[in-house]
């Protein structure tokens, strides 16, 4: 089994993410599963940033606790990360730093010098480092060279070639100096038949998922870590045709524009993070009342207020559940990795259209910013279903009424302007026609109509995915913790604890069988990235199950299997 972890550390602007992107892409193409996670500071240059690349021959979706290889792009990184290494881990750094430390496996490489000699200038040290890493892994250098070719192709042949030369120089240097010194880094089980794996970030998966679900309109205001979704879609407006991305003046405009576009008949969404989502709460309530199919992608980051803008947390679950004044139906999906993110968007648009109500997709910085290797994506897996939307109207049914009462709480919906009928959408309490009412009877009917949708939403809720390793304990998680929790369950088996991992890719409504399913475990322990145990409260409130314990992390750093195991042991 292959499980190798490389961390690339340095100051913002030094290109840690370029190195990780190159390594990840090259290895994904070789048939390995890669997961890169980014530990960034909220600044553009300087500071201390880290990217961790984990490589495995099996799907992997969480960083490792300790690294095998460190690529240190500045002096500080060596000291800062010495403690994050496996005992015999190796450190690659520029040999201009004269470091003596017998306890560490130091592999000085003349990164900048080789870059200047073989590449274009010393900024190609990145490519040199990639070459050195490939050599340490005893892997062939050609796949790396190919990948560099593709990544830099837009910049023209001279740039491509210089990069490849730099990478080969790094490779050669390391081969000469360190060949065989580092057997535990070797990617020995080279995969015989590289499948056609894909590498993408969670944000790209969200955006791609939206695209293949037929999104026509996104209005948003930039906010980390949601901006990447907006930027991905913005970049593809022309090539896909029929997509419009509008940068709104603020989040209130963003959500209301998306509502307008949805009313007009376009699949429409917005994306934001907690603070922007807070500003959208009134708009969410509006969509609930007016019965507009609205999809909101919320990429969580640690709060309150500005918090930790570039880090991760799952602290907005209960806020998402209750956001907006008054009571209305909603669903909350919370994908656990890039593949689930694509499906979540497809499901979100379908649910929104079918139930004519807002659907929230709850991600976080970890889901969105990480690179994930996935088995090839099947865009058609969740076919597009627009529910009761029509662009014709049979006049024999009488005049169209936007809020016509119906057994499932969902009224016929027409594309405005296409049918000769007029339609009134109203944010006050309203009659079936959509006019303002003051009637108590109509109010009761309309409240019941809108809330009735929860029945349908619950009936088709996603059931939790159980990674069944026994029933001593169910480790329960939602959203981006999926893989860390699974890994922890596996690791606990090694300690004699039969732990199953239960992953919820939908937080609300919960699948009706949840109680039955979890009731079988002796113990339920909820793992989540917040300080107050929000999912545990939700689970208790919805199913009556009171978890035996919670494993929480709220320092903005991602969950790892090791962290969960340690905390589990500490729980006693």
């Amino acid at each position, binding site marked *: 089994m292959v499980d190798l972890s490389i961390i690339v550390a340095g100051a913002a602007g030094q290109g840690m993410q370029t190195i990780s992107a190159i390594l990840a892409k090259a290895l994904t193409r070789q048939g390995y599963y890669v997961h890169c996670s980014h530990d960034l500071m909220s600044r553009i240059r300087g500071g201390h940033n880290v990217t961790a690349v984990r490589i495995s021959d099996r799907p992997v979706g969480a960083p490792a606790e300790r690294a095998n290889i460190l690529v240190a792009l500045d002096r500080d990184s060596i000291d800062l990360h010495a403690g994050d290494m496996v005992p015999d881990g190796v450190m690659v750094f520029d040999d201009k730093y004269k470091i003596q430390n017998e306890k560490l496996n130091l592999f000085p490489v003349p990164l900048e010098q080789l870059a200047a000699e073989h590449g274009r200038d010393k900024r190609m040290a990145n490519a040199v480092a990639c070459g050195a890493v490939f050599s340490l892994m005893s892997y062939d250098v050609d796949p790396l060279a190919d990948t560099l070719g593709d990544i830099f192709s837009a910049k023209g042949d001279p740039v491509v070639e210089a990069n490849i030369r730099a990478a080969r120089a790094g490779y050669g240097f390391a081969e000469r100096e360190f060949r065989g010194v580092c057997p535990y880094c070797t990617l020995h089980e080279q995969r015989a038949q590289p499948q056609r*794996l*894909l*590498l*993408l970030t969670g944000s*790209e998966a969200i955006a*791609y998922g939206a*695209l*293949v679900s*037929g999104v*026509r*309109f996104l*209005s948003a205001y930039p906010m980390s870590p949601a901006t990447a979704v907006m930027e991905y879609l913005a970049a*593809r*407006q*022309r*090539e*896909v*045709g*029929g*997509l*419009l991305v*509008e940068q*709104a*003046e603020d989040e*209130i*405009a*963003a*959500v*209301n*524009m998306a*509502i*307008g*576009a*949805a*009313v*007009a*008949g*376009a699949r*429409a969404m917005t994306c934001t993070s907690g603070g922007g989502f807070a500003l959208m709460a*009134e*708009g969410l309530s*509006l969509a609930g009342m*007016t019965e507009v199919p609205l999809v909101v992608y919320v990429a969580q980051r640690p709060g309150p207020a500005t918090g930790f803008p570039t880090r991760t947390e799952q602290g907005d679950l209960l806020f998402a559940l209750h956001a907006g004044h008054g009571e209305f139906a909603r669903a909350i999906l919370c994908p656990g990795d890039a593949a689930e993110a694509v499906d979540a968007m497809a499901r979100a648009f379908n649910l929104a259209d079918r139930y004519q109500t807002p659907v929230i997709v709850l991600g976080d910085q970890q889901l969105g910013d990480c690179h994930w290797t996935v088995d*090839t*994506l099947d*865009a058609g897996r969740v076919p597009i279903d627009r529910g009761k939307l029509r662009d014709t109207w049979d006049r024999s049914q009488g005049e169209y009424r936007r809020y016509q009462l119906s057994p499932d709480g969902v009224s016929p919906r027409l*594309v*405005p*302007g296409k*049918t*000769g009928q*007029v339609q*009134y*959408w*109203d*944010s*006050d309490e309203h009659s079936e*026609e959509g*006019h*303002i009412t003051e009637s108590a009877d109509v109010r009761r009917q309309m409240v019941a109509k809108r809330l009735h949708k929860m029945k349908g939403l619950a009936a088709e809720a996603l059931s939790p995915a159980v990674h069944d390793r026994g029933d001593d304990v169910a480790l329960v998680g939602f959203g981006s913790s999926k893989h860390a929790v699974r890994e922890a369950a596996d690791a606990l088996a090694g300690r004699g604890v039969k732990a199953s991992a239960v992953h919820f890719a939908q937080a609300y409504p919960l699948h009706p069988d949840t109680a039955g399913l979890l009731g079988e475990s002796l113990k339920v322990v909820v793992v989540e990235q917040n300080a107050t145990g929000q999912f545990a409260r939700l689970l208790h409130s919805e199913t009556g199950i009171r978890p035996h314990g919670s494993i929480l992390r709220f320092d903005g750093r991602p969950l790892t299997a090791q962290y969960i195991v340690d905390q589990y042991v500490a729980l006693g």
Partner: protein
Amino acid sequence: MLDPEIYKSDDEVAWCPGCYNFAILRAVKQALAELDIAPHQVMFSSGIGQAPKLPHYLKCNLFNGLHGRTLPVATGLKLANHALHVIAEGGDGDGYAEGGNHFVHAMRRNAGVTYLVHDNQIYGLTKGQTSPTSDLGFVTATTPYGSYNAPEHPLALAVACDCSFVARGFAGDAEHLAGLIARAIAHPGFALVDILQPCVTFNQVNTYQWYKQRVYQLGSDHDPADRAAAFVKAMEWGDRIPVGVIYTNDRPPLESLLPQLAKGPLIDQDIDGGAREDLLARFR
């Protein structure tokens, strides 16, 4: 010209008797009729207040949303289906206070939306508080010692934001107003008509008489293409208040600039089959 009766809605009108919103309602119907716009071809976006109830009293498509959010909804409607005529309707509080940010940015954006503001210099529906256009010293329940804020000149703001059609109408002259509204609807970009609307219940200062004595129609000596002159006209407020078209320019509407919309409305487009494969390929 269509028969204005086709826009008759059967919803009961909730305005005070004598309110000048009735006159605006008449003017809107007349403008739509003149332009031969059928009820299903136009969609209103309205906010919350007395003014934004207007479209309920019309037989036309309507999205009646939140206080202050008429313009973003209207923009979304227009960009998703630019075959629709989109008219945003609201009050002075709705548009210039709660919705003030959208007002500025909608003008910059210049989507083809007609914006009708019933400017009664007061909050009607919430029973009489100061509004951005209330005059200095105006006494209300929230400004018992009179308003201290410099009154907003929405038209001056509009000229500053290079709004592509800027006009003022007076509900006391529904005929002239109907003409302005028709011009605004016919204008390709974002078009503002600020409408002086006496509120007979809560504004005892800026009454019909008050406006009547002051308004005058802009003559041919005013050149709406002259931005500097328009700015000065837009601030004229006191003994004389101009009505008519204060400023226009020929900025192309946003819809016409977007390559995505060249083939037709967004809602009629589909994603290229080939594009999906290309997108996947980039992840390889």
